[in-house]
């Protein structure tokens, strides 16, 4: 019965050379196509947003090349068995690297997020966006669902350790995404509704505690989000300029490479965290809705693929990748349009910046590997 479900798509794939290539590489056609479209849009927007800086575009293309290579390699060679074995090692190595970065950063007396390996620099915290959900999924794979209290406590600990280590870097945005990716696994695993209800006041208390724990500038960001006009030249500047860029774009935008807010540098972080405002200014409401629609498709397709997973590890990992991607999209677009506070989260697959590009595409590689290496029931 399930075999029937697969046969039409299999027939289609055999029809074209492209289809055969995709299948040989273990890639999902629709998902790959839309991801490619989003990445291409990103290249065009980075060219405009960087002030037509060809060096930056070159660098961006190199990042994409690395990320695409990672995606294909993982989708083809990282079979579910390997992924399962690798999960705890990735988690442990990731935590150790974050500790190394934290310690050197402390010695260097400043925010330290990067690990410099000479040839490449990367943020170990980015690895945790994948390693944490995979670790949680690995932990749950042999245990019956829904998780009991002990399982939940264990997962909470697995999430809390890297999150706390990243918060003290301090990198609130990444910490938020790491925590979210782990929580998603807990929710998808069947976290009881009554526990969710109980934890709301607990989270409130935690937020209150965090308020006293986080850095001054992070507190400032939240206050500015609540009232950006109170400091138009300081912390509120980002939010105000971003909304001016989006609002002045109107329905159709000012035209490619003609957004005054972006081109004349009124918009800060225009190639990275605030690139969604550049899309709004130059391509208008239509451009932004198109990008959101593409993201929506990616999330839906990824969730659909996760649902087809044949075991707990595949389903939970896939679901966490799909919804983690959504958290990325929502936090960034919400921040840029002024409905969420400013946290340093890039617009996935479009913002300039290598680490997030690689982790995101590597995540989709894992998803595709899990999906393409299913065993056909009955064969």
């Amino acid at each position, binding site marked *: 019965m399930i075999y029937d479900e697969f046969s039409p798509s299999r027939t289609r794939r055999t029809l074209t050379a492209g289809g055969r290539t995709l299948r040989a590489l273990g890639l999902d056609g629709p998902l790959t196509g839309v991801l490619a479209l989003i990445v291409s849009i990103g290249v065009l927007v980075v060219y405009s947003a960087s002030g037509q800086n060809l060096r930056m575009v070159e660098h961006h293309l190199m990042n994409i090349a690395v990320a695409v290579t990672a995606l294909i390699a993982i989708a083809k060679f990282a079979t579910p068995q390997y992924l399962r074995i690798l999960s705890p090692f990735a988690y442990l190595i990731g935590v150790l690297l974050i500790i190394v970065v934290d310690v050197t950063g402390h010695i260097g007396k400043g925010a330290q997020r990067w690990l410099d390996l000479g040839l490449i620099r990367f943020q170990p915290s980015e690895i945790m966006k994948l390693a944490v959900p995979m670790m949680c999924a690995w932990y749950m794979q042999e245990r019956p669902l829904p998780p009991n209290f002990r399982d939940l406590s264990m997962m909470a600990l697995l999430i809390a350790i890297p999150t706390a280590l990243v918060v003290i870097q301090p990198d609130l945005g990444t910490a938020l995404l790491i925590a979210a990716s782990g929580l998603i696994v807990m929710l*998808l695993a*069947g976290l009881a509704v009554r526990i969710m209800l109980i934890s709301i006041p607990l989270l409130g208390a935690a937020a209150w505690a965090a308020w006293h724990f986080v850095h001054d500038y992070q507190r400032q960001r939240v206050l500015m989000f609540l009232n950006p006009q109170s400091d138009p030249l300081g912390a509120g500047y980002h939010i105000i300029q971003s*909304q001016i860029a989006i609002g002045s774009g109107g*329905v159709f935008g000012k035209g490619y490479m003609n957004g005054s807010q972006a081109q*004349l540098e009124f918009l800060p972080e225009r190639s990275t965290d605030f690139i969604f405002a550049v899309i709004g200014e130059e391509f*208008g409401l239509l451009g932004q809705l198109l990008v959101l629609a593409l993201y929506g498709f990616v999330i839906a397709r990824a*969730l659909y693929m996760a649902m087809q*997973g044949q075991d*707990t590890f595949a389903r939970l990992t896939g679901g966490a990748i799909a*919804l983690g991607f959504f958290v990325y999209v929502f936090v960034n677009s919400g921040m840029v349009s002024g409905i969420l506070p400013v946290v340093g989260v890039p617009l996935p697959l479009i913002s300039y910046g290598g680490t997030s590009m690689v982790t995101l595409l590597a995540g989709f590689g894992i998803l595709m590997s899990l999906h393409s290496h299913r065993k056909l029931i009955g064969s």
Partner: protein
Amino acid sequence: MLDRVRIKDHWGEQRIFTTRSIVAGAIVAALLLAVASRLFYLQVLRHDYYAELSQGNRVRIDPIPPSRGLILDRNGVVLAENLPAFQLELVREQVGPQAQVDASLARLVDIGLLDAEEIGAIRRTLLSHHVYESVPIKLQLNDEEMARFAVHRHEFTGIDIRARLSRHYPLGAFAVHALGYVAAISEQDLKRIDATDYAGTTLIGKLGVEGAYEEELHGTAGYREVLVNAAGRPVLRQGAFTPKLETQQPVAGADLILSIDARVQRAAEEGLAGLRGAVVAIDPRSGDVIALASTPEFDPNGFARGLSNKQYDELQNDADKPLINRALRGAYPPGSTVKPFYALAALRYGVMTPERTIFCPGYFTLPGSTHLFRDWKKTGHGLISMRGAIAQSCDVYFYNVAERLGIDRMHEFMSAFGFGDATGIDIPGEKPGLMPSAEWKRRTYKRAADQVWFAGETISVGIGQGYMLATPLQLAHATAVMAARGRSFKPRLVTGVRAPGSNLVTRRAAVPEKTVSEVTADEWNVIIEGMEEVTAPGGTAGREMIGTPYKVAGKTGSAQVFTIGQNEKYNEKELSERMLDHALFVSFAPAEDPRLAVAVFVENGRHGASTAAPIARKLFDAYLLPDRPASQVGTP
């Protein structure tokens, strides 16, 4: 151990995951819709608001200052113009890091272009500007300084000489008290001007014609829309595009044509050279001020380029008060120069006839008083008639006239000639002088004892002393009215306005004032004949006007600075220079058809005839004998 007991239900687990995924998908859809709604709100509902903010961000309005109008004399000699002034300017980002900027400034001190004390102030100024702005660090370079910089130019990057238009007075101090000057806009100026029209302008007219006609001279500022980036730096392109921006050209100020004749003005200033005093010459047929000089003078170019505090203090504290316009603001006792006017009043009110003689014993006493009013001639003039009294300047005759007229009739008659009231000349700062009356004294003094007008006070006013004060301008104006036999015009300096960049001159009509009436032609003749006798042999100024091809009607005068006691003798040698009498001379020529009325005033000049009259003669020569070589006219 407990885990082992729990059984994995694969179908159940898949069901949980599917349900949860579908719920999650719904939440994802709802949140994406929330973002989309927010975008709709920003881009559709609030678009106009944000579009305006965005426009305000990117476009800066840069003012373009208008070029100030020129000032010309009646024959077209340029008195004020705009010239490029050379200044040293520095662009920080072109020089390099701050250490490099400091090194360059230090080097400029080494080669003597900057003072070491200025460096602190210059650094502050530089730091208050954007790194890409060109900031003046030394104004008004002279040729020698420009040459010195040129020699060392290769040592500097980001520092260069730039030319900016500045006000320039080609003849220096020439006619400065008529022209006024321009200087930096002050806080007080800002209150009366439209700030947008002066954006980009640094200088504003102060005093004189520059001050009074500021509106005409200034013109209208233009503006230029400039595309700027977030750092405020002007840029040409917005991303891949060059946007269309508007420019509104400024309208230059109008040129002013003065009534001043540079030749006559030159004569006046040469006459006053080395003296403290004032000369005003007026055309009695129109009220045109042909010359207006006050000495000492000062160079107005200094104010345009900006004086240091020390330089300004020096001018301000100079004992000779060069900044004071004595022609308008110097109110002095007019002395004997007012005698012709009182003589006319005596005829008008019938208290004297031209032929009636009075015996002058050298002094005068009021009935019932022993107070002696002395004549300047100790031995007296003997029997003297009106013409003779004017020619000889007999004080006793005019003591009698004053006694018979009484102060109130004197006040009434003299007011018609402008005494005691500002003439209304078209430049600011004029003092009204003082023509006293009994009513004036009542009004002015508080104590009842001081409010009483004494008969003796009338006698002093009768020879232009006592309370009476007049400015040189008032004297010139009154003399012009005398010359025109009662016809009066408001004195003026600006006779025409030339539209910017054209030859279209709008002439301003002379402004007639109330005529002195109820005086017959014969009565005018008597007085003018008396004034002609002043310059004839035997008159008080007979020697000074010998050989003029035109006939001069005049009156000498001297005014006491120092009051001598009843039984003291006036001894010039014992008085310090600044206690000496002021010298005055009022006159007009040609007497039969007057074209120029001149009042000369010299502080501590002692004798009207010997000090002041020769200066008047220079003016008449310059104005009435234009064929005489005027080698120096109009050259600085």
